Structure formats: structure tokens, C-alpha cells
């Protein structure tokens, strides 16, 4: 069954490690929906969070192939547990003064924020899971999106689990 999987990969913070990981996905025909990288709780190690779709067999192969990379230290399928997944998007939307109140209404409902105002545009920042960001974008479309930038998902398992 095709599912969306969120995988966390703890890697040595070496030059080229992102290329190794992303290259492996491309080469072996695994799809990457989003990939984020940043420092982790330990110096020298980075954490990548990769969102991919496929069946369980594919996920197993992805995991095993990732472990073959010498710089990969740990691979965790976050989506196997209750998880918090967050993404941030900046949306620059057309906003003539007449349209602003309406847009601000949406922003408020989504607990998003206006982070910049131009004479004919607003920049909206929204944080949430992928569905929420998708919904926000849908609602902004009628006003005319000038520019859109999403960070991709970062995630963690809930609770005391590590």
C-alpha cells in the first residue's frame, strides 16, 4: 500500500553527505517529496528529515540502503509513531488595500502571521503540518500568489521516546 513516510536520518556532518543521501534516493528510484537538513542535538551530527511515498517494502529498502552509507548513523521511520511534523511557508500574495481585511481574516483563522507589507502585497508566514500549509495556499490562490517558498517538513516523535 502506498503511504507517505517521514524518515529521520542522523548523519555525520561531512561535506557531500546531503549529496550521498539524496543521490541514493534518485539513483534507486525512490521519490523525495521533501528533504530538510539541520544541526542535531550533538555536534558533528546533522539530522535530515525526508518525506517519501511508497509501500512498506520500499521503505524497508530505503532504510537498508541508507544504512549502507558510512556517514549514516541512524534511520528512524517517524511516521510509524505518533509524530509532530511541521513545515513553514512564506507566501507573498497580491493584496490591494481593499483585499487586505479578507486576507487578514484567513491569516488569523490559520494562526499564521503577516511578516511584511508592501504597497500591493503581503507576506504571510504559516507554520503547521503539510495539510495545513496546503490549505492555506489554496485559500491564498484567488488573491494571486506572487511567490511561494516552503521549507519542507521537519519532525519528531511525540513524548519521551527518543
Amino acid at each position, binding site marked *: 500500500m502506498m503511504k507517505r513516510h517521514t524518515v529521520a536520518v542522523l548523519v*555525520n556532518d561531512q561535506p*557531500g553527505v546531503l*549529496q*550521498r543521501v539524496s*543521490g*541514493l534516493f534518485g539513483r534507486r528510484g525512490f521519490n523525495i517529496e521533501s528533504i530538510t537538513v539541520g544541526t542535531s542535538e550533538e555536534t558533528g551530527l546533522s539530522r535530515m528529515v525526508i518525506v517519501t511515498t511508497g509501500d512498506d517494502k520500499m521503505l524497508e529498502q530505503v532504510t537498508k540502503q541508507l*544504512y*549502507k552509507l*558510512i556517514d549514516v548513523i541512524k534511520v528512524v521511520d517517524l511516521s510509524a509513531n505518533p509524530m509532530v511534523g511541521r513545515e513553514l511557508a512564506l507566501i507573498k500574495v497580491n493584496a490591494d488595500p481593499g483585499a487586505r481585511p479578507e486576507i487578514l481574516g484567513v491569516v488569523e483563522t490559520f494562526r499564521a502571521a503577516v511578516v511584511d507589507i508592501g504597497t500591493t502585497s503581503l507576506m504571510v508566514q504559516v507554520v503547521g503540518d503539510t495539510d495545513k500549509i496546503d490549505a492555506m495556499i489554496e485559500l491564498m490562490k484567488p488573491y494571486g500568489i506572487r511567490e511561494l517558498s516552503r521549507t519542507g517538513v521537519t519532525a519528531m516523535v511525540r513524548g519521551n521516546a527518543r
Partner: protein
Amino acid sequence: MVAQHATLRSKEEIMESLRKPEVITGSEILLRSLVLEDVECVFGYPGGAVLYIYDAMHGFSDFQHLLTRHEQGAIHAADGYARASGKVGVCIATSGPGATNLVTGIATAYMDSVPLVVITGNVATTLIGTDAFQEADITGITMPITKHSYLVRKAADLPRIIHEAFHIANTGRKGPVLIDIPKDVSAELALFEPVTEVSIRGYNPTVTPNKLQVDKMLKAITEAERPIVLAGGGVVYSGAHEELFEFIKKSGIPITTTLLGLGAFPSGEELWLGMPGMHGTYTANTSIQEADLLINIGARFDDRVTGKLSGFAPKAKIVHIDIDPAEIGKNVPTDIPIVGDVKSVLQMANKEVKYAEKADAWRAQLAASCKEKPYKYNDSEDELKPQWVIEMLYEETNGEAIVTTDVGQHQMWAAQYYKFNKPRSWVTSGGLGTMGFGFPSAIGAQMANQDRLVISINGDGGMQMCAQELAICAINNIPVKVVIINNQVLGMVRQWQELIYDNRYSHIDLSGSPDFVKLAEAYGVRGFRASNKEDARAVWQEAMNHPGPAVVEFVVRKHENVYPMVTQGSTIDQMLMGDTE
């Protein structure tokens, strides 16, 4: 027939003098580290980016350096050295074009899990990324075909990196590791202190298997009526041939060995069914399809072995033993996965394995099938047949030679008609199928085995891909016997065009090939030619009696095909048997 070696200092003397900490250049650190890794011979080719390294090698004699005539020759030689010895093969090339010339050889070693340490020079760190003269991002280019790679930033890192590279190359699932050394790093001074330990977080291959899984396999063996073992290169690489022999003797399970597994089990033994797959034996292929238990030991279910995957071993419970967990379940769904080093797994299994009692009828059936359907060809008195040539080579060498091959029909005939009883006596490019591999790999195999006879079997096509290395055989008196099975065409391609493309022979004619005897002589190597049986045997004996390298060309029938053959998309029991039936 011993190849010449530079006079080397005694090992203790060398080690003693190398171990003391000292401030030296990156290049000197590299050379010392290689010696400390027990490297005896490296193959290489100089250039701008490795000039400091070659300068340090001037007058250096603690290991031998062979100057090949092409970087491809160097890496295939290092590969042959590794396959024939079990040690790590080492080669050196310069940046840019030198490094990219290694790519085919790196991919060849990667596909067949051969341990190599590949050292490339690069432009100075200050120039990296500027499209400098002879710059190529070789770590980037080779990322998909190396087990791991390093771009060295400081000379001080070299001792650790080199030690790690050898460790990674030759443990777990083996493979090539690349070390890219910028020119300024090879000149930089640093304190050299030998590194003897490795700790690489995240790299801990599972060697010892899970006992519960092994027990499951043992139980399955007692229940099976039609068990079969499929053994591959992993048996050879882990040095587990004796354990495999014991396992087969104790369990009485019939065994088939893949192309890379030839020699892992003695071919003269009764339970051996031959090779499976595209050009495998009738019995090996049909037995896999009939089996109710298939135990894969260190083979990776390559598509040339399985044929159409969905119809492969349809009745069998599958056990898969592999050091690389990613191989298990990759192509064929596995019922009993066993992750571990083949040797450790078999040692554990051998303590308790029982004779597969229910399989008596099956054993008898397969033994009869082997007798009834061996490899066959129609011999001829008018034309020299390639199969006959291989059989003759087998007879004349008592099956004792190390045989390397190139890729094509001759490779399959060598696999079929030369019988192997010892591991590491068969060197061939299986996974990548690299033409040009056969001859240079023999040079490496000979360097690793000074006292054994090494024969390199090539097609007239592939021989022309690395023939320039005849020079280093001549100069260093490396006594490889180079066989060329000359059918005047790209034979394997011709076979496919005949059988699958309806006799539409497109660009396979090798007219214009050199006179191979003269070519050999031009390099200072003895050359021989034969085109009938009598001459063939006489010429071969003469070549064998000649103490140095020799090229022996056998002019054979052009239109000969390799049979049996499983065409792509068929299950392996659907074999074309040719006209011998």
C-alpha cells in the same frame, strides 16, 4: 616463471622504521601508511596532481609500483590482484582525466564487491571548484559506485583516512573506497603517527548471525524434499569454501554456484550441478524451479541468474544468507533472512546441521539429470571450436591455473568448460560485464600469485580494449598466458542479433583487427597462432614452456553460439538448447 620484484627490505625492518612518529609530507605519509597496510604492489599512472606522491616514490622500494599504459589497466590490475588474493588492491591516478579513466574499473569492482583503495590526486584545495586545469569532481562522479570516499583536506588526516579506507574496503560487504588527495595536501608537512585502530560510528557490519534464524534454516532442511543451495561470490569473499564443503557434505544438499561463485565448491563433486542462469546448466536451472527449499549463500539474485523474477523458484521456501542486509528481499521475497558473514553463518550451522533425509529421490534425480544433460557442443574436425579450446586448456593445465576472462561468449565458455576446484582461481567481471577487464586483471592476479600459472582468456573484441598493457608484461616479465579466442566478430552481440534480432547483424564485424601475433611481438611478447586442433595443442604447449608472457591466438568458428541460453523475459527453465539435441 617468477615475475621480477624490486629488492624489498625485510618486513620487520620496514615496519620498524615506519612506525616512529615523524614530521613528513602528505605524500610520505601516504606511502608509509600503504606499507603499514601490508601493500606489496600498486598499479598507477602519474600526472600533475600526483607529482609529489610520485616524487616520494622515487627510489622507494618498500612496495612495488607498476606503471601501466592506461589508468583503466591499472584499476583492473588492482582488481585482479584483489580477487585472486583476498587482499585490498591499490591503484593511483592523477586528477581529472586520470581519475575519470578509473570510473569503469571502480564500477566493475563495486558491482562485484571487490575491495580496492583507489587513490586519486586532485588540484590544490585553493583551486577546487574553479574548473582548474585537470580538475574533476571525482568524489562526486564516483559516489554511486564506491562504498565510501574521502576528499582529504589536511595531511594530518591521512593516516586515519587511509587506515579507515582499508578497513571499510575489506570488511562487511567489500567494495572500492576512493581517497582524493589535493596536490597541496600531498606536499603539506604533518606529524605522522601510525593509526592502528578504527572507530567509525555507524559502520558495524553484522558478522555473527542470529541463532534463531539459523535454527529455522536447519529445521527447514530436515523437512525439505527438494532442497538446493545457490552459492555465490560471497562464499569466496568470506573465505568460507571449507565451511561450505562441510555444510554440503553434512546436509547432502545439491549445490549450484553462480558465475562469481565458481570455485567456491569443487566442480568435480557429485552434488555440484553447475552454474545457474542465462547460460547455466539444464540441471541447475530446472532444479531451482522444482526446489521446495532454496538456500542462497552469498549471492545477490542477479537477473542473469533469476531470469524472469516473478517465475523464479516458484515452489521454494527461500533462505537468504548475506552480510549486506540490503540484499535480502531486494529482488526475491525471503522466508528466512540470515544477516551475517557467510563463514560465521556456516560455522554455526555446521555444528548442528543434519542430513536432508527426505531428499534421497531428489538427489538421485538430479545426479541422473547431470549425466543426461551436461554442457554439449557439436565438435568439428575442420574448424576449431571455442569450446574445444577451453577443454584443451583445462586438460593441459590440469585445471590448476588461475583463469581471468574478458566479457562475451568466451567468458561463458570458460565458465562452462574450464572446471574450478579452488576458490580465487576464477576472475571475471560479473555484475558490470566489463570488456577490457580480462587481460589487465590477469596481470594483477599474477602479481598476487607469483608461483601460479595465470591464463587470461579474451575475445578478439575485448582484447583490443586494454592490449596496451602487454608492455608491462614484457618489461616486468609477468608470465601471463594471454589467450585470444578469435571469432572475428563481437561474438556475444552476434549471438543476440542472430537469435533475438532475426539475423540482422549490425556493426559486429571486427575486420581490421591487428595481427595479434605481430602485436604481441611489437611489445616484446611471444605470439602464437593456431586454427586447427593439432596446431592448437602444440602451440599451447610451446607457449606454456616459454618462461615469460605469451599471447596465443586461436582462430575459431565464427558462428558458434553459447548454449543453453535463457532469453530475457523467460523463466530459467525455458532454455534454448541449441542444435546438440
